């Protein structure tokens, strides 16, 4: 189990240029999360590389406390387009 604030904080401290982080507890059990991360550093990265960057930020949280993380990553431009 891990608090959603902890997940957000870990992402923000490892990726200071992140613009939007939304963390949603999918099951109410604090171990299945959905995360939306928007960062200009994703520019030019593949989706795999974008997700790897977030996983790297979360480090050992992914090795136990967080059982599942549905991840959506966007560049600011793609995020703007998605939200029209």
């Amino acid at each position, binding site marked *: 189990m891990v608090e959603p604030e902890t997940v957000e904080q870990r992402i923000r401290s490892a990726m200071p240029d992140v613009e939007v982080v939304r963390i949603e507890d999918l099951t109410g059990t604090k171990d299945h999360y959905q995360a939306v991360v928007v960062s200009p550093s994703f520019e030019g990265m593949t989706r*795999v590389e974008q*997700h790897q960057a977030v996983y790297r930020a979360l480090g050992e949280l992914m090795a136990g406390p967080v059982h599942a993380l549905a991840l959506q990553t966007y560049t600011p431009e793609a995020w703007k387009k998605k939200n029209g």
Partner: protein
Amino acid sequence: MDEQLRQRIEGILGTHKIVLFMKGTKSFPQCGFSATVVEVLKRVNADFHTVNILQDAELRQGMKDYASWPTFPQLYVDGRFVGGCDIVRDMFEGGELQPIVDKALGRA
């Protein structure tokens, strides 16, 4: 990573064009995300090999390190990591998966 383990992983990736490291088997996936990717691969007519990481503790940890990816399933095409469930499903829906599979299987 242990050199012997790396060689083992590269051996698997070198033997099969399309490999899915998953929880359970093709016929009996033991996780919804793994089941989704199996279904997607069937939809694009992929001939694919699966490895049940629930029965192989060494590969279960090894693939996480190899791909810098903490979860399963993990899909590899032509030795390259393509993604997990979310990415593979999005690629399928966006029409990006079929050409990659066709190319790997020499159908392009």
